[in-house]
């Protein structure tokens, strides 16, 4: 069970770590893919990553369809 999906738009605005629960998932989109976090439970929007020419390992990349599936399973979405 995913508790909250955090959709992060800008790395500089990354929410304080205490906001993130163990069952939460972080999805980096837009310019947030330029710098990856030091946590484990994160994924990056594949299209936004490839568009920016950033190298992120394939198992961390999610399509928009994947993002929708993650959102469906979560309790709620917070865009940050």
């Amino acid at each position, binding site marked *: 069970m995913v508790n909250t999906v955090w959709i992060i738009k800008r790395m500089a605005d990354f929410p304080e770590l205490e906001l993130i629960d163990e069952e939460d998932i972080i999805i980096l989109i837009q310019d947030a893919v330029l710098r990856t976090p030091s946590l484990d439970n994160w994924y990056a929007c594949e299209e936004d990553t490839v568009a920016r020419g950033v190298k992120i390992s394939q198992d961390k990349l999610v399509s928009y369809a994947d993002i929708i599936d993650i959102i469906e399973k979560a309790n*709620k979405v917070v865009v940050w």
Partner: protein
Amino acid sequence: MKLLIVLASNPYSHDFNTAIKLARAGIERNHNVSMFFMANGVYSLVREEIKNLAELGVKVYYCAHNANQRRISPESWAESSSMYGLSKLVGEADKVIMLD
């Protein structure tokens, strides 16, 4: 899932791109997708991408106050609404994605 995407950013922005890609993926997964345009987001209502989403089944709403303010006259596939209308949509939605 009833998915509501609220766009308050101007078009030609990161958020515009994110909003249309998420809406399209939602429709492809057979979810019930609504988009609500407010503030500078109402400028998006003249973009082809939004019209195409409406044709694919996305329900498109906008804040009439913001559209008047910006002299935007949306086409008939977009439904005039208000902050109270948005409140109702939030009440009905399973998930809300706010982009501004």
